[in-house]
């Protein structure tokens, strides 16, 4: 079990939770410098305990991003989105000033249509709005644990089918998409985290999904219920980005969504660029 209450008593780094559900801000670390084994071990423990960890005021280029991500695992190369020139492991996540939607607006798992979906990501805010485009994460251990015993039994053994297509990555002015083959993968609805051994719900909010060996229509009642359940705000934290902020999340036991609160006309909010860089770590096949 995550020792949340003892989290601030570590000696090297300071870990401060930002909500009761998940998320913590870490201070006392400069991520642009190589991390010692001890430092990384503490950061990794905080990552396991808090599911998403944050750092402020970090100055990181693509090489530093690759170095940090590589401490967590082998890096994954996105196949549906153009990557940064000279750094295929790095994606530039860009919302142009006039755009009102983000890459990743609804609660989602990153790339679940891979047989082995990513372990997690490191994202770095380079140039972000003063007060729009926060990101929320949600704790899928809690979403699982909050279900009744009967529901847990019913879900055990069920697999959800995830489909991926490059077409889902069109429509972002600052992010040229790449054509790639369609993918399909089925994963257990309840997965076990390979490191913590804890169970979590592994579904996200996308209409038209189905359980393996069942039709879309047959799957809808339960999937709709689970979508509503995982979107309970009590399972979530919200992080406000500043230039230099870093987020590192565990894609095996969290969902995330970006606020689409660019109400330019409705509230006379100024148009603003949102520019981040991201690397993603390869994960295991869920079980």
């Amino acid at each position, binding site marked *: *079990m*995550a*020792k*949340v*209450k003892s989290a601030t008593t570590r000696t090297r780094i300071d870990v*401060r*939770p*930002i*909500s*009761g*559900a998940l998320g913590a801000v870490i201070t006392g670390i400069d991520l642009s410098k190589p991390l010692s084994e001890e430092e990384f071990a503490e950061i990794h423990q905080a990552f396991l305990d808090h599911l998403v960890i944050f750092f402020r005021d970090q100055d990181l280029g693509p090489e530093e991003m690759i170095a940090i991500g590589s401490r967590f695992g082998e890096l994954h190369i996105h196949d549906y989105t153009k990557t940064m020139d000279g750094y295929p492991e790095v994606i530039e996540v860009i919302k142009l000033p006039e755009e009102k939607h983000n890459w990743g607006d609804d609660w989602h798992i990153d790339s679940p249509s891979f047989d082995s979906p990513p372990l997690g990501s490191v994202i770095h805010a380079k140039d972000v*709005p*003063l*007060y*729009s*485009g*926060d990101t*929320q994460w949600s704790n899928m*251990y*809690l979403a699982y*644990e909050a279900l009744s015993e009967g529901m847990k039994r019913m879900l055990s053994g069920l697999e959800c089918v995830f489909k991926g297509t490059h077409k889902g990555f069109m429509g972002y002015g600052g992010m040229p998409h790449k054509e790639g083959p369609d993918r399909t993968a089925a994963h257990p609805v309840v997965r076990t985290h390979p490191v913590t051994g804890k169970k979590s719900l592994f579904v996200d909010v996308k209409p038209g999904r189905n359980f393996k060996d069942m039709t879309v229509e047959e799957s809808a009642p339960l999937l709709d219920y689970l979508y509503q359940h995982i979107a309970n*705000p*009590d*399972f979530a934290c*919200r992080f406000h980005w500043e230039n230099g902020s870093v987020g590192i999340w565990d894609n095996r036991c969290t969902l995330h*969504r970006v*606020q*689409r*609160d*660019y*109400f330019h006309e*409705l*509230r*006379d*909010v*100024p148009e603003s660029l949102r520019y981040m860089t991201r690397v993603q770590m390869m994960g295991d096949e869920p079980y």
Partner: protein
Amino acid sequence: MANQAHATSADQVTVNPLSGALGAEISGVDLSQPLDNKTFSDIYQAFLDHLVIFFRDQVITPDQQKNFALRFGKLHIHPLTEGLDEHPEIVEIVKEPEEVHNWGDRWHIDLTSLESPPMGSILYAKEVPDFCGDTQWANMYLAYETLSDGMKRLIDGLVCVQAGGADGYKNYKGMQFIDAPPMQAEHPLVRTHPDTGKKSLFLSRKAIKHFKDMTPEESAPLLDYLYQHLTNPDFACRFHWRNNSIAMWDNRCTQHRVQADYFHEQRDIEPVYRRMHRVTIEGDRPV
């Protein structure tokens, strides 16, 4: 239209928006001192523009909290909750450490079962957890404005029958409730703000029994849809309390909810106490 484009600054008052949807933190004001008319009018304009305003590090007495509230209107006496002995207008909101729920942890508008629901409230954090029990507010102008023109026409003129009573108030150990008779009122689903002239959705799901002249069954599909619509996280901001933080919200055009993220067992979080003082201001009959 409200201009969020730049932080407005009078002599000392600065207003910094908290999200693209609503909410702003005001600094440069000491609420323990009487406010001159210019300062108050800046605060009032920020309240109208941002719907919920926040102040940090305010050390004020119950009388000073009431005096600030009196600048906005007459003080309201809660019909179902005992106020402080010396200050019946102040409700002490208490969550005992062992409790894992709050008073108000689902999206709601305050006291819509009254003929004239409150205009707003001023909530003062006396003793709050380090990282649990944040409050979210949502912008009900946006919830209305983002409906299609057809839906706006469809719901124009609908009246909601609201009912409430002491029953829902009894499960809070740290609070004293009054066994008052049930209340009932009828209010337009779309109301017009008396100061801004803007329309907003006025739908507090739990209090609404049905549309006037329709059955609960006939009313449910539309009410449920609109509730799902207004809980879109993009319309919301989230405020993290510290001791001596103050929030003041406009109850005519917002909803709010408290995070029930006291995951004592699941995440080994230490049980925490949460105590606040609320003063409420009388409102008009919705039109």
